[in-house]
């Protein structure tokens, strides 16, 4: 190989590298922007589901001493009780008692009254803090209770994630189900999945014929009909939800139409319950089913069906045996997309559902802004995000990158 040729090769490689660098530099601003405003905040939120320094922040001595409590089947010794006394006194002084009380209330039955009661009854000084504290509140003589305090002291805790699945860890470290009167989260998860599944099936049942019609009609006729799908798709979610509230209310058009048709005598309750949620969510998500189905059906040559019928298949048989299998990628993409979007729904159930129809997103927002239980919000967020990302990976595999085109 001549020197000139190697020189040229090296130069080409250099030019190629420079090109790649330039391309990457163009992507970099958006990448950095999303890392700062999106990736890091969500990562930080997820951290809160397992990293908990709330109690340790206000009760530092307890958090430190509890690490030395080795034999967890026996009560801790004087040093930890003395630390508790000192921390209680200090947090009374600097008004952080409520934080400790709130945090322990998640982990212990009536933890709030326990903390405030102990603080109130605690003497100024004592020969044995262990004796004095157990005298003030006998529950401190319970090993189980100290186990719960130890778990709440962090910094790492599985408490919130376990609770998001209605589980808890006993003082001995075993994972058990929480008592049935406290078990709420599995119900919420099941409800979220049920609503999403029903909405997905409704969208498929309603969307399939429309997509088929749009894909088989001549363009001249299909285009105006497509507007009927795209206009609601582009209309604000709030507008559509407002419209459903108006339509489904007791004196709404739907009830009046059903009375007029003689289907019912009395107005029925169609809103602020599950029916309202199904109707409004199906309406909002239907275009997300129709559009991918339409895209796949548009690519199916009518020659296949003609071939099948010319070979003697009845139209029904040709449709079931030939056409339907060819639409499978569209069905999978549309159903997964609708299901993924439905899982995260918050606004529509909040406005047209009742108390028993709220989905997981509602509780994430509720724990964030109403009760300031960020650990629980983060744990439920972790569950929702995990489910979403697994399904999204599946969706990507099934539909390829082309499936990402929305609208």
């Amino acid at each position, binding site marked *: 190989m001549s020197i000139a040729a190697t020189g040229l090769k090296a130069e080409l490689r250099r030019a190629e590298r420079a*090109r790649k660098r330039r*391309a990457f*530099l*163009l*992507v*970099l*601003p*958006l990448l950095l*922007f999303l890392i700062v*405003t*999106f990736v*890091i*905040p*969500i*990562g*930080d*939120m997820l951290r809160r589901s397992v990293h908990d320094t709330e109690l340790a922040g206000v009760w530092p001595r307890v958090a430190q001493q509890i690490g030395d409590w080795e034999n967890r089947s026996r009560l801790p010794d004087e040093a930890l009780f003395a630390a508790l006394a000192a921390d209680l006194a200090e947090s009374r002084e600097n008004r952080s008692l409520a934080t400790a009380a709130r945090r322990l209330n998640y982990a212990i039955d009536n933890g709030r009254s326990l903390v405030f009661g102990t603080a109130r009854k605690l003497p100024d000084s004592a020969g044995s803090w262990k004796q004095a504290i157990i005298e003030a509140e006998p529950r401190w003589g319970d090993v189980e209770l100290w186990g719960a305090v130890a778990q709440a002291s962090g910094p790492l805790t599985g408490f919130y994630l376990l609770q998001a699945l209605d589980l808890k860890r006993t003082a001995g470290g075993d994972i058990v189900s929480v008592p049935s009167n406290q078990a709420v989260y599995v119900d919420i998860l099941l409800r979220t999945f049920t609503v999403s599944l029903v909405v997905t099936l409704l969208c498929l049942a*309603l*969307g399939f*014929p*429309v997509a*088929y*019609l749009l894909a088989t009609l001549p363009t001249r006729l299909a285009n105006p009909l497509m507007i*009927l799908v795209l*206009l*609601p798709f*582009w*209309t*604000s*979610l*709030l*507008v559509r939800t*407002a*419209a*459903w*509230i*108006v*339509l489904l209310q007791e004196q709404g058009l739907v009830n*009046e139409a059903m009375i007029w048709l003689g289907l019912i005598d009395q107005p029925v309750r169609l809103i602020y319950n599950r029916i309202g949620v199904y109707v409004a969510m199906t309406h909002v998500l239907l275009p997300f089913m129709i559009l991918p189905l339409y895209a796949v059906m548009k690519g199916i040559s009518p020659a296949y069906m003609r071939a099948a019928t*010319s070979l003697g298949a*009845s*139209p*029904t048989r040709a*449709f079931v045996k030939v056409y339907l299998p060819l639409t499978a990628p569209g069905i999978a993409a549309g159903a997964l997309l609708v299901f993924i979007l439905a899982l*995260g729904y*918050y*606004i529509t159930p909040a*406005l047209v559902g009742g108390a028993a129809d709220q989905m997981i*997103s509602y509780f994430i*927002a509720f724990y*964030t*802004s109403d009760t300031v239980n960020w650990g629980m919000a983060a744990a439920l*967020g972790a569950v*929702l*995000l995990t489910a979403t990302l697994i399904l*999204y990976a599946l969706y990507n595999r099934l539909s390829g*990158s082309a499936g*990402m*085109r*929305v609208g």
Partner: protein
Amino acid sequence: MHNRTGEEKIWTALLYGVSGLVLFFLMAPILAIIPLSFNSSTFLTYPLEGFSLRWYREFFASDSWLRALKNSFIIGGASAVLATALGTLASLGLARTNFPGKGLIMALVLSPIIVPLVITGVGFYLFFAPMGLTATYPGLILAHTALGAPFVVITVSATLQGFDLNLLRAAASLGAHPVTAFRRVTLPLIGPGVASGGLFAFATSFDEVVVVLLVAGPTQRTLPREMFSGLRENISPTITAVATIMILVSLALLATLELLRRRNERLRGAKH
């Protein structure tokens, strides 16, 4: 072969019937709410009592609704501009060449569409509240930029797929600086795509309410946020007027996008 059997006729009739009902279902809410906004009655029921513009007058006389309208345009406009700038640059980089980690970057760039809004909102709220960015315009604009940018990337990337790189080589061989070539050759050709991306980003912000609920303060409430409050308390017919105005905005967006799509097709067609 067109021997339409009875079986086929039944299926066709069924197809038209069911599709007609579903399309009616899709349009019914929009069609039902518009007439109510012109109704003189305070009840949100049919039949209509009489024509009146009083709910529109109430909208334009209400400080909180007008502020919400203004906020929607400020936040939507600013986040669309930012998202368009960041998204277009990124699309140009992603379209040009393969570099290590491109698949991962693409997945990350598109993820704000898929991640449930409540998670994006809670993450943003918890992370930026200590920095004083919540309940401010910049905070909300940044959050909405992150939500809108993926749509710009999708739209502009699709436009760039039909873009002939030889045009840039020709420009370079004629002595054009890369920036000049971008301004004089690339931008006019992908312009409609960039504009569509910007409209998508605007529409995303204009419709978004979950992040606004979590991140905005009382002075940054947007139209959807104000509607959310209105729908939770007792519903005033003013909401139907707001809804009609928002439907008009959607129609305008949809029509503009269609015009841009046609223009884009013409530009592509002219190349061959």
